[in-house]
């Protein structure tokens, strides 16, 4: 493991994540073939592209849920290629899932408390001695309650997460991710299945993250959302990155429109053209 360069961690100009020459194949399919991607620190970066473009696979590679065939991924200058997900979480990189993973038979507050890192009571022997972790547990609980309040989930605090609506689960998953106090928050389709009223508050919550020193990367299909909150947009198609730029640049980019044209003959396409 290379030492983290303190200058690099503080400089706002250096990228927080880089992926170089990253290739992932499934059988004969080249699911991801990315020459070079850099993610800017404390910005919101959107990853868009038609279905099957390799967005989620790329996400899985960045978060350690899948292993690259070749290539190098770095986090703050540290090579994290092949690092398992739980180690990445400890390094400040957390993700959510396209299909929400609320832990149904744990209460909302338990879901939240699970997210805290370095818990003393997570060690087997310490677990037997409540005195050794109770104080920390109370601190974690207070932090969890504060985040729940911010996400407007306090009324669900002691309910099983399984009783929540789809939108509430999305909120809970993001709130739980914040319990790890991450530097990088990776959201896989955070808006999917969320009703419009809830969607707006979710957007506001995402927009606040860069101000807290967190970098956001998200996969999204809804172009309005992408236009509204992202600082930078990366477009993937057939495993490759075909364009990147500011939202304004992307909406007028011919390659992007073509990529969507090629894959979609429906309404999404017209949205891309118009907005």
């Amino acid at each position, binding site marked *: 493991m290379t030492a983290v360069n303190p200058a690099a961690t503080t400089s706002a100009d250096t990228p927080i994540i880089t992926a170089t020459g990253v290739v992932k194949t499934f059988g004969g399919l080249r699911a991801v073939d990315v020459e070079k991607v850099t993610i800017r620190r404390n910005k919101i970066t959107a990853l868009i592209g038609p279905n099957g473009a390799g967005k989620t696979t790329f996400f899985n590679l960045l978060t350690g849920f899948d292993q690259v065939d070749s290539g190098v991924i770095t986090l703050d200058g540290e090579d994290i290629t092949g690092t398992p997900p*739980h180690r990445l979480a400890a390094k400040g990189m*957390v993700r959510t899932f396209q299909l929400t993973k609320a832990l*149904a*038979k744990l209460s909302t507050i338990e879901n939240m408390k699970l997210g805290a890192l370095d818990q003393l009571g997570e060690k087997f022997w310490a*677990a037997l001695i409540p005195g050794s972790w109770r104080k920390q547990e109370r601190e974690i609980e207070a932090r969890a309650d504060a985040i729940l309040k911010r996400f407007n989930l306090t009324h669900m605090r002691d309910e099983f997460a*399984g009783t929540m609506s789809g939108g509430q689960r999305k909120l809970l998953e993001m709130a739980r991710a914040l319990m790890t106090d991450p530097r990088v928050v990776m959201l896989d389709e955070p808006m999917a299945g969320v009703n419009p009223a809830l969607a707006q508050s979710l957007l506001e919550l995402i927009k606040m993250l860069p101000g807290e020193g967190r970098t956001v990367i998200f996969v999204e299909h809804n172009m309005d959302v992408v236009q509204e909150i992202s600082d930078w947009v990366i477009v993937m198609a057939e495993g490759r990155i075909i364009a990147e730029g500011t939202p304004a640049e992307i909406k007028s980019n011919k390659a992007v429109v073509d990529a969507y044209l090629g894959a979609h003959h429906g309404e999404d396409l017209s949205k891309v053209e118009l907005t």
Partner: protein
Amino acid sequence: MDWGFILERTFSAMIGPEVMIYALAAVGLNVHFGYTGLMNFGQVGFMAAGAYGVGVTVFWLNWSFWIGILFVFVYAAVLALLLGIPTLRLRADYLGLVTIAASETVRLLARSRVMKPITGGVEGIDKFAEPFYNLSPFELGKFYSLGPFKYLGRDVWVLMVGWTLLILVTLMVQQLMRSPWGRTLRAIREDEDAARALGKNAYYYKMQSLMLGGMIGALAGLIQVIQKSSVQADTFNPVITFTIWTILIIGGPGRVWSPIVGSSIYWTLIVFVENTLRQLPAGARQTLQDTVELSDFNIGMLRFMLVGGGLLLLARYRPQGIFGSREEMALDRR
């Protein structure tokens, strides 16, 4: 028909050695399945590991019984590692396949001729538990009774030690499951990937769970062979595993006290049905005789059929078990 005798047997069964031993094994399975979601279909293998932990030490190594007790846990931990290392990174079903095969491997290996100098082969091992019974404050051959409960002195001693251990182990599991450690296990049961994304090393926790539950199973195996005063390979057959599963399902997986209550209900029913069948009045016996001969073997089978019918009713009307919550169970289907 001697109701007094039937009730005495039934009451004594309610907290008898079988209840205690199977409850202990089910506490281990509850750690595996109820809290961590591990499909262990070879809990009897861990019991055998416990039984031979002490048996082999005394019989083959000629070491003390008390050192043997250490080996009970060593064997269980080694078995858990052997099972866990190749399977815990894979999907849940693979552990199920490997555990059922491994528990049969343990049994067949232990009874094989090659292993005879070590395990005693089919003849098994006896005369190893004297140091335990020497400590007994009760006269081993004398009957003791308290209210409706009546046991031999040697069983009273086994029960006293066994129930103490069972309660202690249950309280330990309760404490563990209330801790952040237990919360992580339950999170892994619900969704392993979510736990991993939140910084939990799921593989490591599943291994700890497998070892803990396995050691508790081994303790059950140890008490079983002490109670029988013999280690017999063939007593550790897969039926035991499924009985333990039945007990856990009756009580409700993932609840602290369900192994004890499930085991008590199961064995009370078995003993009640068996003794009632044996004590049927002559008329009823004669009527039944035309359809089924009430031999010892048939009674043994009949009691399982009747208890099986009862379990079907439980599965239909109370699928969550005695302690489980229906509301909680419904969450699975959402």
